[in-house]
Structure formats: structure tokens, C-alpha cells
């Protein structure tokens, strides 16, 4: 086992061990933090498929995160008010069942990613960055002006949604749900990177001409990657909203996109566990620095600047060497 794999194993076990210990020590706040790490890491795993493998610098992933969040908020709000979502052409009721909410979140964010991706992937480079950012902001402003679902104030639900057979109100049980989903996503991302699709997508990032010359269209690869990426980030959004029992336009704002990207980079872009380590560090910093100063993001900015200018492999790169492993 090389150092990166060792580190990955340690991190994923630690992420499980801490909440288990906190559960016994009756420190629910720690469990909530660990849950937040797992959920943000999931969002990062999604982004990393587009960004790390595909090289698509999307500054609009908050759109998918927020759509997932609103999928939860809207369905749950209708369920708690006993108002159907639609009566025509067929009766659609709200729901407080997580699996249904997740499905809706994944489908809705995948559709949004399909539309946004289809348009923005017609361009590349700096255009792509600005356009993904702009479409993300469009949804942000839309959410603000959409008063039916809370507008600027967002949407609260009273009780966390349910999962068959579990009591989601127990912090540890909700954590375990998120943890299992994160592990599944990591497994999928690892398989994807090695699969024919991952090989071609990675090649398209490194050299577009090469991919075209062997008869593969980069646009289709990238659009598919963007949709998968958006769907995973959307699922993370639904969980995040459930964790807070609240969704607001902030989830859609470009700062959220930037933050997801930041912790993917801090962890190590293109590394399987980059998002996990990055999210953990991000939450840790937020609470350590946040305890010292209200203006902790200054330090975050400084740290990010140093990493970008001087340590481009992120944390995993610093620990296990710069080369991204391929086998």
C-alpha cells in the first residue's frame, strides 16, 4: 500500500471513528461537524469528477448543490403542510421520505447540469468559467425572487426527513446515512476514474486533439461527466439541507461554488480523497480559526493563496508526492 492509500484509509476510518466516539461521549455537536464533513466531501467528490478528471473549471456547482437543497425543501414543505405540489395533470404530493427526495434531487440537478453543461461546454477555458458562474448566479437570483418558496429568507422544515428503518433524529444515525453515501460515491468515483470513460475523459483534459484523433468526441464525454458531477453534488445538497433542516439561496451563491472548489483544491485536485481531506480541513479551520476571529476567512484566503502559489498538489500531494497515481 502506498502512502496515499494509507492516508486515505486512515482518513475514512477516522471520519467514522470520531462520531462513534462522540456518540458514546455524548458530544452531538462533534457528530454534526462530522456529518457536515461527509456531506461537503460528497459535494466535492461530485465536483472532482468534472474538475479533477475532466479539467472542467466549473464555478457554478452551487447551482446543483442548491437545486438538491431546494428539492428537499420544497418536497418536505409540501409534506408538512399537507398541500399537494400539483393537482393537475396529476396529483403530486410532497414527501418526507429521504430516498424519494434523493431521487428527485439527483434527477433535478442532473437535468440542470445537462442544460447548463450543454450550453457552457460549447465554449472552453475562461468562457466556460464565466458562463458556469453566470448560470449559477441566475438560479441564485431566481431563488431570491421566488417568493412562493421563501425567497431571500429561505425555507425551513420542522422535522428532519425520514429514512425507512432508521431514526434520522439521532445524530449518529443521520451521520451513518451520509457516511455510507459518501463511501458509495467514493467507490463509484474510483471505478469511474479507471473505467473506459475515465480514461477517455482524462485524456480529453490532457490533450483534446489526441482524443479526437482516435475518434472520440470530447463534448459528449465532458457533458456526461458534468451531468454525473452535478447529480452527485445535487445529492449532497439534499443531505446538507436535511442536516440544517433549512435551505436558502445562499446554497446557490457563487461563494458556495468557490468553497466547494477550495476544499477540493486544498485536499488535492484529481485525488480520490482530495475532497474528503479538504472538507475535513475546511470544517476544522472554520471552527478553529472561527473561534479565534470572526474574520477567519482572511486566514483561509491566505492559506489558499499559499497553496495555489507554492503547493499545488494540495495536502495529499504534500504528503504522498506530487504525481497523481495511475495504474
Amino acid at each position, binding site marked *: 500500500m502506498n502512502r496515499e492509500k494509507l492516508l486515505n484509509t486512515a482518513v475514512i476510518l477516522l471520519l467514522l471513528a470520531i462520531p462513534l466516539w462522540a456518540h458514546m461521549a455524548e458530544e452531538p455537536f462533534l457528530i454534526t461537524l462530522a456529518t457536515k464533513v461527509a456531506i461537503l466531501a460528497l459535494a466535492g467528490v461530485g465536483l472532482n469528477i468534472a474538475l479533477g478528471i475532466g479539467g472542467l473549471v466549473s464555478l457554478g456547482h452551487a447551482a446543483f448543490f442548491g437545486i438538491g437543497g431546494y428539492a428537499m425543501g420544497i418536497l418536505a414543505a409540501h409534506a408538512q403542510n399537507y398541500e399537494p405540489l400539483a393537482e393537475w395533470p396529476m396529483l403530486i404530493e410532497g414527501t418526507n421520505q429521504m430516498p424519494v427526495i434523493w431521487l428527485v434531487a439527483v434527477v433535478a440537478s442532473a437535468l440542470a447540469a445537462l442544460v447548463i453543461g450543454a450550453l457552457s461546454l460549447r465554449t472552453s477555458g475562461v468562457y466556460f468559467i464565466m458562463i458556469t458562474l453566470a448560470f449559477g448566479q441566475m438560479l441564485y437570483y431566481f431563488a431570491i425572487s421566488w417568493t412562493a418558496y421563501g425567497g431571500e429568507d429561505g425555507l425551513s422544515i420542522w422535522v428532519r426527513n425520514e429514512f425507512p428503518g432508521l431514526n434520522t433524529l439521532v445524530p449518529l444515525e443521520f451521520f451513518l446515512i451520509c457516511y455510507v453515501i459518501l463511501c458509495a460515491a467514493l467507490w463509484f468515483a474510483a471505478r469511474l476514474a479507471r473505467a*473506459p470513460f475515465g480514461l477517455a475523459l482524462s485524456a480529453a483534459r490532457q490533450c483534446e486533439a489526441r482524443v479526437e484523433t482516435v475518434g472520440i468526441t470530447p463534448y459528449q464525454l465532458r457533458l456526461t461527466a458534468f451531468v454525473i458531477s452535478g447529480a452527485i453534488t445535487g445529492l449532497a445538497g439534499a443531505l446538507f439541507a436535511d442536516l440544517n433542516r433549512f435551505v436558502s439561496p445562499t446554497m446557490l451563491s457563487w461563494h458556495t461554488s468557490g468553497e466547494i472548489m477550495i476544499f477540493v483544491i486544498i485536499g488535492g485536485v484529481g485525488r480520490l480523497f482530495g475532497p474528503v481531506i479538504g472538507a475535513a480541513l475546511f470544517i476544522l479551520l472554520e471552527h478553529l480559526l472561527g473561534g479565534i476571529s470572526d474574520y477567519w476567512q482572511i486566514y483561509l484566503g491566505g492559506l489558499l493563496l499559499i497553496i495555489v502559489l507554492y503547493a499545488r498538489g494540495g495536502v495529499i500531494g504534500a504528503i504522498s508526492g506530487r504525481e497523481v497515481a495511475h495504474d
Partner: protein
Amino acid sequence: MTDMTDPSGAGQVLKVSDLSKSFGALQASKNITLDLRAGEIHALIGPNGAGKSTLIKQISGELRPDSGSVSLLGRPVDDLDRVARARMGLGRTFQISALAMEFTVLQNAVLGALGARGGVFRFLGNVMRDKALVAQAEHALERVGLLSDAKRRTADLSHGQRRQLEVAVALTLQPKLFLMDEPMAGLGAGGSQALTGFLDTLRHEAPILLVEHDMDAVFALADRISVLVYGEVIATGTTEEIRNNAEVQRAYLGEEEPV
């Protein structure tokens, strides 16, 4: 202009008719007509800046000509992009290596085999454990003499080895014709000789349109040669005819005495 193209069109794998392309005031291609027939190596020579690469790009579909037409295997391909032309069987190597530099040598070759086979949209399953793909990739690497380097990172290869890998990736596509843009550059005498020997046998699998500066290789390999000067084909003919063509001597070979 000496035009030796086959008027009947029999056995034409590639046909370029009356192709023109300008960049602003610079006319890079001027009414270029040439063809490539089954079983042959057709060399394209000319001084730097004569428009060889521009012509290759128009044939492969990277650049659109201003006017004129390209046919592959008897079918006009002017409306097809380079992906579609690659799928029709056009295998191309680049003058400046276009390879996935983070990949191993084998991964680059597997990518070629994957492109040829199809099935890119598979999300599970380790592509490097796909026996058929790897076998095809390794076979191609072996043919160009790179199999022993299969595990090396492409970025660590020498320039010559990258050219060999370019050829290997093109081989994995099992193309109907090859477009090779200076495959010998950076190879050194030994490598160049080995590749010359290999291309000599390769022509029977698929004909080659060969852009090359190495005149020894060109005169050893080519069935026919076209000479491009200032975007214009000033002569096409057998090696013998080109060697004895006064216009070519003046325009191009003057200072560089052929073998």
C-alpha cells in the same frame, strides 16, 4: 505543373481536389490536388512554411479549406469533423506530439484501441484490465519497438519515443490510411532506420501520406513524391521523376543533393 494522378480514380483511398486556404494575405494552400492510392507511400516534401502542415490539417478535418474538396475512400468528407474522419479510418500522427502526458505509454495506446473499438461510455470496469484492448495496445507498441517502455510515463519519453508512440496509437486504430506528420523527427539515425523499415512493410496494410524532412527516408520509402512550395504542388511523380525534375531542383533540392 506535373500531374501524375491516376485519372481513372481506381484504388484512390484519399483524393484532394483543388484545395485552397488563406490566412489573411498569406495563401497557405493554392489549388492543391493530390491523391493516395492503395498500397503506396506518397511523400509530401517542401521547405519549411510551404504549407505541409496546413494541408495535413485540412485533410484530417482540423481546418476547413476556403474552397476545394477532400474525399476519403471515395466519399466526400468536407462536412465531417476530425472525429468523424478518424472513425472512417484516417489515422494521423502529429508533428508536435499530441499525447496524454500524464498517462503511461500503455494507457495512451489503450486509449487508441478504445477509440477504435467504441464503448467509451462504460463507467465501471477497469479499462487497463480489458484483455482485448490491452492486447491490441501492446501489439501496436511491440510493432514500433516501445513495448519495453509500456509502463513509463509518457512525459518521461524522449521526443523520438513520443513519435514512435504516436505511430503506435495510430496503429491501434487499424486505419484505412495514415497521415504522418514528420514521424522521423528527433529519432536519431538508428531509430529513423528502424522506423523506415517498419513503414516500408506498413504500406501494405494501409497507404501512407508521409510528410517528412528526412530525405533519405523519403527517397527510400516513397512510391510517389509531391513537392509543395509556397502552398502549391509544383510536381508530383515517382522518386526518379522528382529527382530529375528541373523545377524541383531549382525550387527545393538545389542545395540539398539527393542520394
